[in-house]
């Protein structure tokens, strides 16, 4: 269908691309690899792009973080503030806090960069969590991708620690209160806790002047380098193993259907980068986040209501609030209360998550290789367990906001805690059962989980009568999703695949 002009233009384009590759080849001898790399196929399902959202958040975090590091000073030397922010005038504060205040008010783009950095961190973790759920619910962690699951969970863990260390750097009241909690949690580790906390902080809380420096090095070098390295490994393994895809017409365990890296997928991906930057800097410029000047410099005697961690640590803060006041004492040694919700719970959670690919194999007696994904409904038990875990995390995250929920709904704090304590057991069970039954129902009807069913699957029973599965269909026209025939064909193709 193409015209003569179009054909000659595309020939010219290919020629130019060839010239560019020749240039690289003459110098680096790598054009063969690049040529095949540019032709690499990536599947197109939208949910596969959320991992990229996280990756681009990381890129933006590096860029904004470098800008912030130009002005931040990790020093706990006490200075007297005489800057442009009147309510802090004449107050004593650490140089670290002063540098963040100056960064916010006196450095061009400083506040924008700081807020964009913080929003990017919050979205980064949200994208990682979504990406992880996608991988979990579709069984993308199954053989041969267990290694990438391990790398991914490590990325999540380090990102949480990285986020928390960043939250602690400004040395404002929230930072200090958060560190106070973490110090106590570290202290609660049996036998080694007090020793560990003392050495990490360089003394009893709030620690020596070396602590802020250490935190800075950890946030600035150690964790970002680990993240960059593991992200590289994550992508390299993905590249080597190729991306998974949902079953569909023409898709098998052995092939891959989608867009080429160049130009289609690269352009899509670049567009996504632009959109991530738009959202991050849009929020950074328009919506206030962590106004440290309101919280004031950290002093051990001060505290503020509504002192919560950033959202991805909220489930641990909530667990601290929900955990009963148990203390165990035996053989002259006490296991302090924060150990259970602060160390044991995340320890168990992350152990189970790390081990999940192998647990999954045993549960489903499925040790084979899989390049085609499950739909969540295909493995109702896995989906039910995943939903139950999500509800548990939502419950504990809500628990970290009990004071705000109580204030908003005018409900007593104790009642909320009690509801969420029971909720952390009952909620996952109810959620799991509902998810399981929904999966079974969706398997039977073949309907879309969100959209209203259009038509349905027509089956013929043993007596020769015809039935429509998915009874709530409302006719064939008018909703833009095509007629019933297409749906039936699509569903059949799905099952054959």
């Amino acid at each position, binding site marked *: 269908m193409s015209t003569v002009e179009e054909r000659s233009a595309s020939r010219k384009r290919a020629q130019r691309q060839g010239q560019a590759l020749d240039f690289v080849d003459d110098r680096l001898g790598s054009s063969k690899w690049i040529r095949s790399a540019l032709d690499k196929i990536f599947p197109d399902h939208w*949910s596969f792009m959320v991992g990229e959202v996280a990756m681009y958040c990381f890129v933006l975090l590096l860029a904004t973080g470098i800008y912030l590091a130009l002005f931040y000073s990790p020093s706990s030397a006490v200075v007297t503030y005489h800057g442009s922010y009147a309510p802090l005038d004449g107050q004593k504060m650490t140089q670290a806090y002063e540098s963040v205040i100056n960064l916010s008010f006196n450095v061009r783009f400083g506040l924008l960069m700081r807020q964009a950095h913080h929003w990017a961190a919050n979205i980064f973790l949200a994208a990682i969590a979504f990406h992880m759920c996608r991988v979990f619910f579709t069984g993308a962690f199954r053989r041969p991708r267990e290694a990438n699951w391990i790398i991914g969970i490590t990325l999540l863990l380090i990102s949480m620690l990285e986020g928390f260390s960043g939250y602690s750097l400004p040395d404002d009241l929230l930072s200090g209160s958060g560190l106070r909690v973490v110090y106590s949690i570290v202290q609660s580790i049996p036998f080694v806790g007090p020793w560990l906390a003392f050495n990490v902080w360089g003394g009893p809380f709030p620690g020596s002047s070396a602590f802020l420096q250490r935190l800075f090095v950890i946030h600035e070098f150690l964790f970002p380098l680990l993240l960059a390295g593991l992200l590289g490994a994550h992508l390299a393994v993905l590249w080597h193993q190729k991306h998974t895809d949902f079953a569909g017409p023409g898709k098998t365990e052995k092939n891959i259907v989608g867009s080429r890296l160049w130009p289609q997928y690269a352009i899509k991906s670049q567009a996504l980068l632009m959109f991530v930057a738009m959202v991050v800097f849009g929020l950074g410029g328009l919506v206030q986040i962590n*106004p440290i000047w*309101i919280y004031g410099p950290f002093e051990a005697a*001060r505290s503020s209501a*509504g002192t*919560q961690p950033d959202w991805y640590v909220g489930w641990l803060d909530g667990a601290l609030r929900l955990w009963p006041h148990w203390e165990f004492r035996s053989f002259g040694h006490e296991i302090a209360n924060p150990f259970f919700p602060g160390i044991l719970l995340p320890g168990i959670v992350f152990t189970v998550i790390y081990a999940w690919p192998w647990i999954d194999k045993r549960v489903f007696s499925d040790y084979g290789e899989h390049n085609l994904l499950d739909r969540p409904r295909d493995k109702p038990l896995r989906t039910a367990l995943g939903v139950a875990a999500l509800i548990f995390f939502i419950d504990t995250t809500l628990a*970290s906001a009990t004071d705000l929920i109580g204030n908003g709904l*005018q409900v007593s*704090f104790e009642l909320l805690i009690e509801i969420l304590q029971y909720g952390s057991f009952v909620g996952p069970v109810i959620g799991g059962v509902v998810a399981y039954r929904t999966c079974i129902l969706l398997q039977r009807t073949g309907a879309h989980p969100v959209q209203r069913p259009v038509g349905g699957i027509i089956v013929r029973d043993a007596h020769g009568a015809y039935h429509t599965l998915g009874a709530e269909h409302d006719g064939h026209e008018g909703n833009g999703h095509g007629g019933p025939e297409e749906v039936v064909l699509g569903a059949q193709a799905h099952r054959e695949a």
Partner: protein
Amino acid sequence: MSTAVPSSERGWRRPLAALRRKAMGGPLALVGVAVALFAVLAWAGPAQAGPPVHWTVPVSTKPADIQAGNVLFNEHCSACHGVGAVGASAPSLLNVGPAAVDFFVATGRMPLNSPKAQPMRNKPYFSPKQIAEIVAYVNALDVAHGTPGPGIPNVVAACKTQSAECPTLSEGNQLFLLNCAQCHDASGSGGMLSQGYVIPSLRDATATQVAEAIRVGPRPMPNFGPGQLTDQQVMAVADYVTWLSHRPDRGGLGIAHFGPVPEGFVAIIFGLGILLVISRLIGNRG
């Protein structure tokens, strides 16, 4: 400015500078005398002319106001507080003072529907004139009883004179973070106490009401007497809270000023949410 001092010090030691000093000696001495004179005048001036600061607003003692207040009290308050404010199902008001009455009535906390409910900020039921009359009546009772409570703090006047008593925002900030933020949040958005007590936001409170609450201690808030916070410190806190409620939100829209929880909500719903929609638009289905 601070760099000028060492450089001139260095100049003293140089012979050329010494010569310059000789030539400039006359004018410098003149300037010195002028500065000293000005300093003495500046020090002496306000001390003589400055009006004494009244920390409280005078309460009307006119019989007409007291009588009008008596009528209002009997209609709206005596059912719980008893005739003559001696107390019934609600506490006696014989020692509360004008600050407490003004605070509870002017913020709409009183009259209260049920004596067991926590009084919350509401639209004031009475007009300012009626409030002043009720205050006058209860004040008259308190004075007659020999136990006048704290008066209504005079916040605005103290700050408008711009005298040495005028509090600084920094002083208010420090006192607020030390004494108030535990419950009211560093941003004054409020929170939650045990037993279902809601800690109110300070957003709508006027400076006078903040000062009244500090002195009165509307339950479950403790009261801060003059031994804990001086009148000037109360002014400083009230001034800072007023500033906090009307502050310009640097860095954009402040989301409820409740810290990381609403921030996380916005990051997930609007941040990731928008990006999921965009991913769906860029990507395909299947």
